């Protein structure tokens, strides 16, 4: 069984650091605190899942990390630099409607590749069309794709620009459970091949235990980090193994606590 060092995970470089991050919104002239004192270090290539009660501020946290929002307190640091705005090196994948309906599959994947030469762009598009298994749909518009295909397309568009960090905001939340299961597997396959840092917001406990190196549990609003769980089961994870179930129960218990906290 894994001991503290048993997994022999290589010591990886620090990629992202959140330092005393707090976020408050103005609402009816009053300041409403959403996030308080968030501290987290994420290593390069790590897969982090953020879980917590709905409305607790998971998406807000993701938007802060993506540079779409500026924290009212503290700072988000990537590669030793404070984030000042969105950047193609860090791409956010949205829950739904994230793909451009006026572009075909090809056009969407190539969206961030305008600066490449025609040949390079072609090659990149073909590569990611294959990776997300959308061969044969290159010239299809998103309205003719299923929800699952649209999400794969969004992931492909994100990966195509070669980001170091991928933020996923409940990317499979609007899909049916079997599609979700398949896409989880595909995401893992892609992650193992390309090793990006992934921050994945979900409210699905199974999703978190199946995917993450570490699961960050947030409390109810104003959200703080309640727990950080390390899931030291190698991939592919057997979702009926005793250790998997143990982690799952543990996480459920902690989230239960988070709800009442």
């Amino acid at each position, binding site marked *: 069984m894994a001991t503290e060092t048993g997994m022999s995970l290589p010591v990886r470089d620090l990629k992202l650091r959140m330092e005393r991050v707090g976020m408050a919104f103005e609402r009816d002239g009053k300041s409403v605190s959403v996030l308080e004192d968030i501290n987290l270090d994420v290593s390069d290539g790590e897969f982090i899942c953020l879980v917590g009660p709905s409305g607790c501020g998971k998406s807000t946290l993701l938007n802060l990390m993506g540079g779409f929002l500026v924290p009212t307190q503290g700072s988000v640091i990537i590669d030793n630099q404070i984030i000042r*705005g*969105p950047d193609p090196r860090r791409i956010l994948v949205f829950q739904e409607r994230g793909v451009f*309906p006026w572009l075909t599959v090809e056009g969407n994947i190539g*969206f961030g590749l305008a600066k490449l030469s025609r040949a390079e762009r072609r090659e990149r598009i073909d590569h990611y069309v294959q990776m997300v298994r959308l061969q044969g749909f290159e010239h299809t518009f998103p309205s003719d794709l299923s929800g699952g295909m649209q999400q794969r397309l969004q992931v492909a568009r994100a990966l195509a*620009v070669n980001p170091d960090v991928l933020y996923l905001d409940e990317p499979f939340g609007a899909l049916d459970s079997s599609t979700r299961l398949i896409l989880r597997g595909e995401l893992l396959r892609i992650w193992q091949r390309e090793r990006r840092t992934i921050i994945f917001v979900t409210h699905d406990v199974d999703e978190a235990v199946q995917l993450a190196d570490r699961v960050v549990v947030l409390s109810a609003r104003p959200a703080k980090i309640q727990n950080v769980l390390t899931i030291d089961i190698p991939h592919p994870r057997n979702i009926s193994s005793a250790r998997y179930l143990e982690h799952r129960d543990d996480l459920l218990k902690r989230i239960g606590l988070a709800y009442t906290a």
Partner: protein
Amino acid sequence: MKLLVRPFAFIAVLLVIWQVAVNRDTAQLLPGPFGVVRGMGDLLQHGLLLKYVVASLFRVTWGFLLAAVIAIPLGLTIGWHRRAEMALSPLVQIFRPISPLAWIPIAILWFGVGDLAAIFLIFVGCFFPLMLTAMSAVHNIPAVYVNVGRNFGLSTADFVYRVIYPAVVPQLIIGSRITLGIAWLVVVAAEMIAVNSGLGFLILDARNAGNRYDLVIAGMIMIGTIGLLLDLGMRSLERAKSFRWSYSED
């Protein structure tokens, strides 16, 4: 083709009723369909019909295009900048309910009797509907598209061309279609007062110069037919494949 049978059959029935009614009427309140056709023949013979149709279309085209070129970019810009919108909104709301026809005296004062005055009136009639369409089109851009555009590091020009423009175009086409209908309404009124040619002028002139009601109705039929064709033209634009996305989505 089958779709066209019913409307045409219905029109034929109406024409018959019209003719019968006119035949039984002794007061001569309306010319019959044959009289109108003869009137149209007269106009064609004198080369007036084509001339007037071209004159009206010319004014509508220029008035509409000028308004579109100015009002749409302006509306998009104002709609994007909420503060500008808050500042300008009351002014727009005051100008908007003023009928374009209320501008007729000013149009004649500024431009005299002629094409320019009529074009100006159509411009005024199209300007506010187009600007408001553009403003609301910007508001309706889903935040997701804007965020994706920002995320991929587009320059401002690229952002406008590759995100804003494709996102608003379907709504602009619908708004333009409605506005072109307004332009076609305004041109008739404008031509009755501000110029000496065009379909509106034809109608007024036919009445003033000898109560030629056959020509009045001929003019009305031309206005209706051309209005229908303009609308069909704009509708075909709505169905253009590259813009179809917004209609097939939901």
